[in-house]
C-alpha cells in the first residue's frame, strides 16, 4: 500500500468513529498539557532564579568569614588567606578590612577643604584583587600595586555626591538620583581633581595628649557604580597595607591595645574562583579549614537541586496522566480491532499484507497521540499565557520572597513543544502496539465467517 493511501485510510477510520476518537484525544490533551505545563513551570522558575542571581552579582565569588578570635579558633589571618590563595581554582583572595575608630573620621576636599564626607566606608583590600573581583574603573586607574608616598585610594562611582558643603546650611548636598525631568545634578567636584584630606579625630576631644591624625590622600580612580554592589557606589578602597598602617597609627595615638590572647583575624575575606564549577570544591576546602563560606554559586546549586526535585515530582504527575491516556488509547484501539474484525479479515483475503494491517492500527493510534499532542501544546500555551498574565505578581508571595515578579512564571521553549509532540505521538504508537498485533493475528477465515 502507498503511504498516502495508508494515511487517508487511517484518517477516515478515525473520523468515522468521531466520538470515541475525540474522547481518547481529550485524554491525550490532558496528559500532554499536564506534562508540558509542569515542565514549563519548572523552566519558568529556573529562569526567574537565574534572573534574580544575575541581579545578585558575580556567582564565582566566595565570601569567607572568620573562625573567631578565641584561643581555640583558627584565625582568619594572613596565613589563612595565603592558604586559601593556594587552593586549586582560586584566582585571588583578599581580606576586606574596614576602619575601626570609635571616633569621628572624615574626608575633606574642594577649595579650602570646604566640602566634607563623614564616615565613608573604607575597604582595605589587596590591590591586585580589585580587577579580578569584577570591579570596573570608570575614570583613572586601580589601586597602585607597590608602595606610594601619599595615600592613594579608589572611590565608588557616586562618592562625589557624598560630600557636603560646610558653608551652607541648606541645599548643601548634590543628589545622584535623577529628578522629575530625568536630569542628574553635577557633583560639587571631581574627587580625582581636587586635594583630599583624611582626618581621624582623637577618641577623646578633651584629652590634649592625643592628636587628630591627618593624611593627604589622592583618588587615583573612580569605580563604575554597580547598584547590586553598594561598595562600588560610595565605598573607598585603600591598599590593605595602608589600611593596616592607618589602623595601627590610630590605635597607637589613642593607646588602644589588643588583648594578648586575642589573635588577629579578618572579619571577611573574598575569594574569586577561576571558574564556576570549582566553586563548591573551593568552598568545601575553606570550610575544612574552619571558616564559614557563602557564595552565589552554591546558593544557585541548592536552588537548582530543589528545582530538579520539583521537576521530577511534577514530571511524574504529568507522566502518570499521560500513561493513563495511553491506556485509554490502547482501550480504544482494542475496541476498534473488535469492531473491525470482519473488515480486517476481508482486507486480508483481498491481499492486504500483514505489515499494512499493523501499520493501519499503529498509525491510527499514533495519530490520536499526535493530535492530542498538538492540541495539548496549544492548550498549554493558552494556560501559560493566563498564568503569566494573572500569576506574574503573585510569585513573590507564592514561591518565597526571593522570587520577585520577574520574568514569566511559565515558559514553553521550542524544545518543549517538540518534546510534548514527540512524547504524545510516541505514547500513541506504544499504546497502539498491542492492538495492532491483535489485528495482525486475526485469522482471515474466522473473521469473514463472523456475522
Amino acid at each position, binding site marked *: 500500500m502507498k503511504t498516502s493511501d495508508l494515511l487517508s485510510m487511517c484518517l477516515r477510520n478515525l473520523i468515522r468513529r468521531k466520538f470515541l476518537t475525540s474522547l481518547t484525544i481529550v485524554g491525550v490533551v490532558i496528559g500532554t498539557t499536564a506534562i508540558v505545563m509542569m515542565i514549563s513551570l519548572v523552566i519558568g522558575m529556573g529562569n526567574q532564579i537565574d534572573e534574580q542571581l544575575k541581579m545578585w552579582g558575580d556567582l564565582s565569588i566566595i565570601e569567607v568569614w572568620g573562625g573567631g578570635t578565641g584561643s581555640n579558633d583558627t584565625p582568619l589571618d594572613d596565613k589563612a588567606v595565603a592558604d586559601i590563595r593556594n587552593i586549586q581554582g582560586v584566582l585571588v583572595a583578599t581580606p576586606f578590612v574596614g576602619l575601626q575608630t570609635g571616633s569621628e573620621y572624615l574626608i575633606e576636599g574642594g577649595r579650602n577643604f570646604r566640602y566634607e564626607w563623614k564616615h565613608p566606608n573604607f575597604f582595605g583590600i589587596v590591590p591586585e584583587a580589585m580587577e579580578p573581583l569584577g570591579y570596573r574603573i570608570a575614570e583613572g586607574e586601580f589601586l597602585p600595586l607597590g608602595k606610594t608616598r601619599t595615600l592613594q585610594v579608589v572611590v565608588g562611582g557616586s562618592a562625589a555626591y557624598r560630600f557636603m558643603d560646610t558653608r551652607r546650611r541648606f541645599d548643601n548636598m548634590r543628589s545622584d538620583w535623577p529628578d522629575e525631568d530625568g536630569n542628574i545634578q553635577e557633583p560639587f567636584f571631581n574627587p580625582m581633581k581636587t586635594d583630599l584630606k583624611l582626618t581621624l579625630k582623637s577618641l577623646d576631644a578633651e584629652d590634649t595628649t592625643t592628636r587628630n591624625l591627618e593624611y593627604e590622600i589622592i583618588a587615583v580612580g573612580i569605580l563604575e557604580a554597580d547598584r547590586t554592589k553598594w561598595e562600588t557606589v560610595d565605598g573607598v578602597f585603600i591598599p590593605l597595607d595602608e589600611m593596616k598602617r592607618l589602623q595601627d597609627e590610630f590605635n597607637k595615638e589613642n593607646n588602644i591595645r589588643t588583648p594578648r590572647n586575642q589573635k588577629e583575624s579578618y572579619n571577611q575575606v573574598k575569594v574569586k574562583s577561576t571558574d564556576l564549577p570549582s566553586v563548591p570544591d573551593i568552598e568545601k576546602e575553606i570550610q575544612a579549614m574552619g571558616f564559614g563560606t557563602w557564595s552565589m554559586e552554591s546558593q544557585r546549586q541548592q536552588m537548582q537541586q530543589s528545582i530538579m526535585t520539583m521537576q521530577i515530582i511534577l514530571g511524574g504527575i504529568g507522566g502518570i496522566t499521560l500513561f493513563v491516556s495511553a491506556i485509554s488509547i490502547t482501550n480504544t484501539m482494542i475496541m476498534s480491532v473488535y469492531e473491525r474484525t470482519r*473488515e480486517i479479515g476481508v482486507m486480508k*483475503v483481498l491481499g492486504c*499484507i500483514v505489515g499494512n494491517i499493523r501499520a493501519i492500527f499503529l498509525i491510527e493510534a499514533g495519530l490520536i497521540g499526535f493530535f492530542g499532542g498538538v492540541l495539548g501544546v496549544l492548550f498549554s500555551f493558552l494556560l501559560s499565557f493566563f498564568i503569566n498574565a494573572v500569576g506574574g505578581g503573585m510569585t513573590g508571595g507564592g514561591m518565597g520572597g526571593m522570587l520577585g515578579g520577574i520574568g514569566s512564571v511559565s515558559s514553553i521553549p521550542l524544545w518543549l513543544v517538540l518534546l510534548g509532540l514527540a512524547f504524545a505521538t510516541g505514547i500513541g504508537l506504544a499504546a497502539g502496539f498491542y492492538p495492532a498485533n491483535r489485528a495482525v493475528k486475526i485469522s482471515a*477465515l474466522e473473521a469473514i465467517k463472523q456475522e
Partner: protein
Amino acid sequence: MPEPIIKVKDLRKVYRVGMEQVVALDKINLDILPGEVCCIVGTSGSGKSTLLNQLAGLEKPTKGAVVIGGRNISRFSENKLAKFRQKNIGFIFQSYNLLPNITALENVSLPLVFRGVSKKKREKAAKKILNEVGLSGRMAHKPSQMSGGQQQRVGIARAFVASPKIIFADEPTGNLDSKTTIEVMSMMIRLVREHNQTLVLVTHDPELAKYADRIVTLFDGNVVSDKENESIADSKIKEAQPQEDTAKGGPETE
C-alpha cells in the same frame, strides 16, 4: 490437454474440536484446467467450503499440497500468500463482505489499493469493471444504500478488478432470490469467459451447477463424482444471453 492451473494432491484437513478430531477433507485429488468453470457441490458438512479455503490459501492443509501455476502455495508464508492473492486470486463471498463505510467505487478499488496502484489508475479500472457489471450509476453509493443483488455485483466487480487468473466464489448467490441469482450467475460466467479466467464455485444449490463446465461432488471429505457438464453449452448460452441485457440496463440501475 493443457497443464492444469490448480493441482490438488492428496489434500487432507483435520480439525480439532475439543478432544475430537473432525476430518473435513480426507484425501482430495483434483486438477482444474485454465478457463474452466468448476462447480464444487455437496451437502452441508461435505467439506466443500474447506476445500475452497484450502485452494485460496486461507488455511493450511494438514497434509498434501495445493499447487497453483506450478507453485505450492501451502508452503507460502502469510505475506507471500497475501501478495499471491493480490495478483492471482479474486474472491466472491456469500455475504458480499463489502466494507460498509466506503463507496462502491472504493470497495472495488480496494484490491488495487493493496497492490499500491495509484488512485487515478485504480479508479479508472474500478469504473470500467463497475460499468461492466451494470453499476455505473451506483459508484458513489455505500453498500447499505444498495440491494443485495447490487451489493453482490459490487463484490463481483471487486473480484475481477485486478484481472486475477482465478476467481473463487463461495455460495455467491446464497443470499439472493432466484431472479437475482440468475442475473448474478450469468454475469459471473460472462465475465469469466470474456477475460478467459478460471472460476471455482462452491454451492449446495444443484441449479447453479448448470452453469459449470464441470461438477465435482464432495461427500464426507472425499470426491465422490467428477464429471463434465453435458448440458452446459446450450444452457449456458441460453441462460446467460438474455440476462446480459438485464444486467446492463436492468431496472436496478435506473
